[in-house]
Every structure is written in C-alpha cells, then in structure tokens.
C-alpha cells in the first residue's frame, strides 16, 4: 500500500515536471525557441539532466538562428547591391550609342542591348540563336554574307583573338537588317577565363555618315587636284616660254603670255576659295551672322569684278531696282558670295553681245533677287543636279572649262542657311533666270 502511494506520488511528480516544461516544447514545435527552462531545473531529479540538455539545445538553436538571420540579412543586402549595380550597368549598356551583343563560347547570343535590338530588329530578342544568323554581315569585297568561320565574330571567338573593323580598315563590312544595308564598324572581343575562351562581346555602330563624309572629302581633294593641274601647266609653260623663249618674242606676245599667267592664277585662286567654302560647309564650320544689308549696294560692289569679262564679251547689264526696297537680313559675306556666283555665271554663260538683267523687288517678307541671262542655258535633263556639289552640265563644260562645279552648291547652301530660297528657270540655249529670296528684318 505504501508502495502504490510512492509510485503514485512519483508518477504525479513526473507528470507535473513534464507539464511545467511542455509550453516550452509547444513553442519550439512552432519555431519559437525562446523558451527558458531555468526555473524548473530545480529541484534536481531524474529529469534534470534531460532538462539541462534541452535548455542547452534551445540556446544552441537560438544562436544558430541568430547567425543564419545575420547571414540572410547580409546576403539580402549584397543582392540588393548587385541588383542596383546590374540596373546601373544595364542602363549604361542601353544608353550606349553603339550596339552590344554577348555570345557564349558556341557563338550563341546571350545578351543584346537596346541599340543592338534597334539596329538588328526584333529577331535579335530571341536568345540562344547562332550569331551568324542574326548578325548578317556582308564583306564588300566578295559581296557574300559571311557564315561559319568566315564570320568575323565566330572567327574571333573561336580563335580567342580580338578583331576590329572601322572606317580606316581595308575591308568594308555591311550589316543586313530587314531591308537596310549599312556599313558598320565593330570590335569583337573574346571573354577569357584563363586560357579558355568562354564567350565574346561585339560592339558595333553604323558608320554610313562617317563613310560618306570621308568619301566626300576624298572626292573634293581628287577634283581639286585635277582642276588645278591645268592652270598649273599653263603658268609653267607660259613662264617657261617667257624666261627662255625659243625665238625672240614680240612685246605684244610677251604681254599676252603674262596675261595668260595672270588668268591662270586667278582661276586657281577662285578654285581654292570655292573648295574652302565647300569644305567648310561640309564640315559645318561656317558661322553666319546676319546683319541689315542693302542688297542693291552689294550688287553695285560686285559688278566691277566682272567689268573686264563683260567688256571682252561685249555684254550689257540692265538693272531694275524697286524704289521701295527694304533692307534684308543676311550675313554680308553670304550675300556677297551669292551675288558673285550668280552674276559671274550669268556673264560666263552669256553669248557675245547679250544683255544681263538684274532685278531687285520688295516682297512682303523678303527681298527678291532675279538674275537673267540669254546664253547657253541649262538643258532639262540636268535640272535636278544643278545644285549638287561638283556638278557641271556638258554644255557648260564646253563653253567654259574653268568652272569648279561648286558655285551653285555653295550659293544654295548660303541662301538656305540664311533663311531664303533659290530656284531657276532655264532651257538649253534659252538662257537662265535665277531667283533668290532673302529674308527681311521684321
């Protein structure tokens, strides 16, 4: 009987002890390890060791959780930094003027920036395509679209070597995108990990503009040297003949030879001036400063330069100047250039004994300048090319071999930059009438 009571008491004691500790276990089962068993460690009994062990376990778990949370926080912060950095890099890559492509070691596309998509078209958006099927490159020399190892990007990545093609390269490459065919400059750089190539980047841009400018400059130089050769030969031979003549030259002939030298020199001066003006227009270094200009005065100032030629060809000039002519607003040098070019053309292409008519009319918003000659005129088939650089109609070339082909190009540029317009009416052998409007002040 005493045994049963002792057993009962012991069972009750154990049950009480377990009940005291179960809240802690209940919390732990839902992930709350904050329970504290220190209060029930006393009195020491058979369960104490178990409770102490559990207490230590809980502490250890709490510490581990704290470490993990700290690590997670640190990782989260690091990830945020990476995301910010990625966004920054992405925005830089997309704001590049140039297209950028990334490829893996098998030359499949794994990155495109926005400019690249714009240049290549939407097909570039599909990743993992072979680069030679998206980046269609034509080698100008063969006219063929490159593929396989012939494709510079594939060649560069497979060979692990960087490659650049640009305006200065001998090879010219054209990118085919949709219906466009544009000349591009590009650089392919393999991405290396140690000695191994693990991919590549391609950076590329459209160089049509630069290429055209380059060609225009070479053309200008070529034409210049060609056109200068004749006056240079003229000066050389006439001077040579004066310095060491084969037979004694009469004073008349000597004077004639000197005049020829003078004229050849004048021709070279005009040519060089025209070339510089055209070159400046092309490069964009012309700065026009409008002033209040009396156009009739510019006309009067320009005529003396043409006097000699006009006397030689027995030309007359008729001027009709509007009595109410307002001042125009235009850069004075531009106005002089326009006047000189148009008047000298009228003189150059007139036939002997003809009359040149110049009219200045006041209009609502502009001054109208009209210059008419009755000479060789401009055949209809050339009308659309008259204002283009270096163009001279065949009849003009025959009549006056010493034109540069730049006068009307320069004139048109000057007129338009000054806010005016220039146009003409003409037929072969029916002369030509040129019209220019020059803006007025207020």
């Amino acid at each position, binding site marked *: 009987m005493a045994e049963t009571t002792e057993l009962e008491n012991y069972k009750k004691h154990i049950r009480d002890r377990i009940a005291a500790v179960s809240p802690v276990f209940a919390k732990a089962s839902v992930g709350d390890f904050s329970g504290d068993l220190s209060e029930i460690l006393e009195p020491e009994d058979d369960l104490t060791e178990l409770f102490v062990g559990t207490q230590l376990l809980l502490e250890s778990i709490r510490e581990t959780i704290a470490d993990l949370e700290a690590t997670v926080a640190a990782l989260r912060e690091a990830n945020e930094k990476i995301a910010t950095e990625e966004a920054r890099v992405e925005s830089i890559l997309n704001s590049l003027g140039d297209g950028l492509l990334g490829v893996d070691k098998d030359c499949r596309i794994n990155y495109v920036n926005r400019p690249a998509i714009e240049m290549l078209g939407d097909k570039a958006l599909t990743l993992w395509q072979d680069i030679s099927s998206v980046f269609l490159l034509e080698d100008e020399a063969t006219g063929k679209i490159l593929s396989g190892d012939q494709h510079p990007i594939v060649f560069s990545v497979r060979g692990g070597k960087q490659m650049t093609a640009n305006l200065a390269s001998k090879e010219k490459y054209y990118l085919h995108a949709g219906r466009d065919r544009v000349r591009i400059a590009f650089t392919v750089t393999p991405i290396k990990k140690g000695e191994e190539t693990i991919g590549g980047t391609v950076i590329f841009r459209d160089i049509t503009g630069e290429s055209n400018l380059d060609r225009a400059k070479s053309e200008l130089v070529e034409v210049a040297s060609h056109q200068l050769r*004749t006056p240079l*030969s003229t000066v050389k031979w006439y001077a040579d003949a004066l310095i060491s003549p084969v037979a004694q030259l009469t004073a008349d002939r000597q004077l004639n030879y000197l005049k020829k030298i003078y004229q050849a020199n004048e021709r070279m001066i005009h040519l060089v001036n025209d070339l510089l003006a055209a070159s400046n227009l092309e490069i964009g270094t012309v700065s026009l400063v409008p002033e209040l200009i009396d156009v009739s005065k510019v006309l009067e100032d320009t005529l003396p330069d043409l006097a000699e030629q006009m006397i030689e060809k027995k030309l007359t000039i008729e001027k009709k100047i509007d009595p109410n002519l307002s001042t125009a607003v235009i850069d004075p040098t531009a106005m002089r250039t326009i006047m000189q070019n148009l008047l000298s053309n009228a003189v150059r292409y007139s036939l002997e004994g003809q009359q040149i008519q110049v009219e200045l009319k006041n209009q609502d918003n502009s001054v109208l300048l009209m210059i008419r000659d009755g000479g060789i005129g401009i055949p209809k088939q050339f009308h659309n090319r008259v204002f283009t650089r270096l163009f001279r109609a065949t009849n003009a070339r025959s009549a006056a071999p010493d034109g540069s082909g730049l006068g009307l190009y320069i004139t048109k540029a000057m007129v338009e930059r000054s806010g005016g317009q220039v146009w003409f009416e003409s037929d072969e052998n029916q002369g030509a009438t040129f019209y220019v409007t020059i803006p007025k002040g207020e």
Partner: protein
Amino acid sequence: MAENTDVYKLLIVDDEAPLLQILSDAFTSEGFMVRTAADGEEGLAQALDWHPDLILLDIVMPKMDGMTMLHKLRATEEGKKIAVILLTNLSDSTKVYDALANGAFDFLVKANWSIKDIVREVKSKLQPQKAA
C-alpha cells in the same frame, strides 16, 4: 647635210585654249607645221584630212575624249600609223594604260614636263635615228 630638213606636220588636240596656244607657238617656232583642235571630234576630222606626222593628244575633252578619238583613229587605214603622244594628268592613269594598249606611242604628264622636254620628245619620236 646630216641635218634633217623635213618639215613635220604636228596636230595638237586639247580642250584648254591657253595650253593649245602655247604649244602651237612653241612648235611653230621650232619649225613645225602646226594645226590645233579643241575636242576629239575636230581632232579626228583633222587627223584624217591632214595626215599629220604626229599627234599630241589630250585625254579629257568634251564632245569626244582622247581615248575614243584614238580608238577611232586606229580603226582607219590612214590612222593606224600616225604617231600619238598622250598629254595627260596623273589622275587619268587607268585610261592611259588602256590607251597604250590601243597603240599610243607614249604619254607624258603635262604638269611635269617643260615645253623644251616636250619638243625634244616629239623630235626624238619623229627622228629616231638622229642623236638626241
């Protein structure tokens, strides 16, 4: 007399009037009979009509250029054997080689030759056996 007293007929074809004049004056002073033409059309007509001994021929000319004139000249019986020296500027070099294939005798670059040199060249082409 060892001196060759033949008067040679020289046709000069060039579209630049001042150059035509100075060459004409120089060769006339040297005792040549000189005729001139300002384009290939006129030059061809003169060549076939007058049978010059030598032609100084410019390449770039309106109406008919030197290359075309030479080609047409060489297609005729009389024109086959006339000596031709091309007057050119360096930028025409590809045309020059074509012309040489067409039987031009020689060519010279205007800007690099003095009148005396040209006269000497013409004389040597016409009198190859005479010492220079």
